């Protein structure tokens, strides 16, 4: 009997708290900007600085890019979201195509964000930049043997190459810009070259870097900030980046960024937020916390990242990542790239 009374009490307690929970009403607050974001790291400091400066509160809803976009679409004109953030230019391009962004004309943004890192139609703006390039084991590989993405298909790398799966968004974007640069047949040839080298497919950029360090493979492709974070923990980590395609098209870059939603309730505040995030002050915070590249060329790069030296970036507009992403996915499937 004791346990029955216990169950009853427990049940009442749960029901009570549920009622409380469902009944919580949002308190009317100061001016706020509501942000839906599929980027979850390294921005808190910049947000705090924005609130301090403007008094505007930022409310965020984190999520995954695909589903979050569906929520925005489903909510339509009554969506509370003012700004949509996501990683990967392909995702930004897709959101723009779905019509969830309204164009923004802002001299500040145009000045701070280089042209190839934002939408030509001003619907979204890159706010941080990441480079995806060749990583090698410093004890086993002579960097002079490395040059381009294409050259990773040379027979000398047979069994020595580690890659993410072709389903991974940053690889899809890399392939997409390759299609834009070289055309589909040539891009497919390049990927077939990689596949012929029987790459080990590893999930996780950090995991790839660890695999290179442990000797499971000698070279791989990853974003640079993962290496920077590992080097920050262990300066002797035996992996270094090689800037790919310096003599030709330049190293592939991608962005995380965002735009103002089509049905923003606080459009002015949303534009203010984007502008602030592109300023030197905020860009410096991004660079320092996440070890990505700032998009604003005036901001200083993190010391570890700077030690790798300057490099030539592929200046094709990153929107190509979206435009050719479906083609890239198909190409990878045809080439047998898992």
């Amino acid at each position: 009997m004791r346990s029955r009374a216990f169950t009853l009490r427990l049940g009442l307690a749960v029901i009570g708290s549920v009622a409380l929970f469902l009944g919580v009403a949002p308190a009317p607050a100061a001016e706020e900007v509501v942000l839906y974001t599929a980027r979850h790291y390294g921005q808190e400091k910049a947000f705090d600085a924005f609130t301090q400066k403007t008094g505007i509160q930022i409310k965020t809803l984190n999520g995954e890019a695909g589903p979050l976009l569906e929520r925005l679409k489903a909510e339509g004109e009554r969506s509370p979201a003012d700004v949509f953030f996501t990683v990967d230019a392909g995702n930004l391009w897709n959101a723009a195509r779905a019509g969830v962004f309204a164009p923004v004309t802002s001299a500040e943004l145009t000045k701070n964000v280089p042209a190839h890192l934002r939408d030509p139609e001003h619907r979204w703006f890159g706010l941080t930049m990441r480079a995806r390039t060749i990583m090698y084991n410093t004890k086993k590989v002579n960097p002079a043997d490395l040059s381009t993405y294409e050259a990773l298909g040379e027979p000398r790398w047979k069994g020595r190459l580690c890659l993410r799966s072709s389903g991974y968004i940053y690889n899809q974007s890399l392939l997409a810009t390759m299609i834009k640069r070289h055309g589909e047949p040539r891009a497919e040839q390049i990927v077939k070259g990689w596949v012929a080298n029987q790459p080990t497919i590893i999930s996780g950029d950090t995991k790839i870097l660890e695999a290179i360090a442990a000797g499971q493979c000698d070279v791989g492709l990853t974003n640079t900030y993962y290496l920077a974070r590992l080097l920050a923990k262990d300066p002797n980590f035996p992996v270094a980046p090689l800037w790919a395609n310096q003599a030709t098209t330049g190293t592939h870059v991608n962005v995380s960024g965002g735009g103002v939603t089509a049905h923003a309730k606080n459009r002015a505040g949303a534009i203010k937020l984007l502008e602030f995030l592109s300023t030197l002050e905020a860009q410096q915070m991004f660079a320092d916390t996440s070890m990505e590249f700032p998009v604003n060329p005036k901001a200083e790069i993190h010391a570890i990242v700077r030690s790798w030296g300057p490099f030539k970036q592929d200046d094709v507009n990153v929107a190509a990542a979206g435009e050719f992403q479906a083609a890239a996915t198909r190409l990878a499937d045809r080439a047998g790239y898992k």
Partner: protein
Amino acid sequence: MLAASAIALAVAVPLLVVGAAWRHPAGDVWRHLWDTQLAGLLVNTLGLAAAVGVGTLVVGTGLAWLVVAYRFPGRRVFEWALVLPLAVPAYVIGFAFLGMFDFSGPVQSALRRALGDGLRVPDLRSGWGVALVMTLVFYPYVYLLARSAFREHGLATLETARSLGHSRRRAFFEIVLPMARPSLVAGVSLAVMEALADFGTVSTFGYRTLTEAIYRVWNGMFDRVAATQLASLLLLLALALLVLERALRGRRRFTQSQRRGGGVEGARLRGWRARVATGACLAVLGLAFVLPVGQLLLWAGELVGGARVPRNLPGLLGSTFVLAGAAALSICALGLILAYAVRLHPSPGARFVAQLSSMGYALPGAVIAVGVLAPIAWLDGVLHDVAKLVLGRPLDLLLTGSAGAVLFAYAVRFLAVGYQTIDAGLARIPPSFDEAARSLGVRLGSTLRRVHLPLMRGGLLTAAIMVWVETMKELPATLLLRPLGLKTLAIEVWELTSESRWAEAALPAIAIVLVGLFPLMLTTHLTAGPPHGPR
């Protein structure tokens, strides 16, 4: 009956939304998939489902029988501890496994140091690796259901069979197992549906299944329609498995006419047998629980001085508790209504509808979440229009992004857990009890309350624990449908791990395990009583 139909219908709406994707042709995607990979995907998916099905059946049933029918060192602890892996999110176990046994992990590194660099061990990132991990993650479904079935009738049946001259082994395979069949099937089908819907583990291990392809088409080709169509294939697969099982079971029905669980002692194992029994339990528990939790603790230790306890931990705990509790209560109630309606009106049609409404479990969570979003947003639109007409002013979004929507999504996803478990429990109660009650003039509600509920208390509690643990770990639907500012432990863990910040993710992940332990302890408290006395 009306209530049951309404529930089935409401829960089936998101599934219909999934099916409705076929209105839009996506022929070129299908042609591409057909040309490049569809056959391989199907083989991989079915192979994985079969391996996980057999694996969880053997491990779950074996362990359950071991702890119920025998006595050996550590049995009392194992009896409840073997459920623990359920509280660890699958991808955490997968990641800990890779961390430990991968090429760059400590085990292989040590082996290379000892045996030289030429060493090559079979790659864990393969079909068998995934099947192994999933078996370890999902066997507790079978274990929990089998244990509760064995406890109710297993030993008494075994005694009877033995007194009739059957050997122990024969009695187990020919009588005890067939009697437990509804429970075993329910457990295995939950495990298989989980395996079908899993994205985290297969993507970590680089194993391509239909679910992996769904995400690829969605994120890589930006084609949600084709992705949803692919998802409906998963529904078909799950349905086919259930139909197959029904066909194999035929008309046989096993019920117990007397509750004689009490009074029979398990046989004591001695010598090497006892050591093997203890060793088997230890091995499973070690791999599926101690290893991943140990890894989490190691990660947590990397943080200097525990400085990074999340600021909002109490809030996270609170919302996780409330959501999981509300889901456990409501889904068990829905499952009970559904299972009871089928029992009262046992037609193949009713059973099929009930099964169908629990198929959401075989779908990847993100697909379900978007499927839930559509009808909710539509309803919001209707409310909006009505409000405009009646009140003369527009309305904010009421349902989209509300806790109610999240709970609805849980019902769609986890009704299978509630329904299957409760149905299996009900199935063991002979229909003659119902007839007896009816002939005595007892009303329907009283029969349920006074006859069935007490008899199936173990099953209900099992269902409640499983739903609790499931919701606690749930990510995609919570993530997408939640109100602004609502956050659970699972979301916190995901945000951190998606950035490879495992050290910071470790503490909230451990908190998930602890919150999962809570109902477990509660059930032990509620069902243990005197170990062999009447309950």
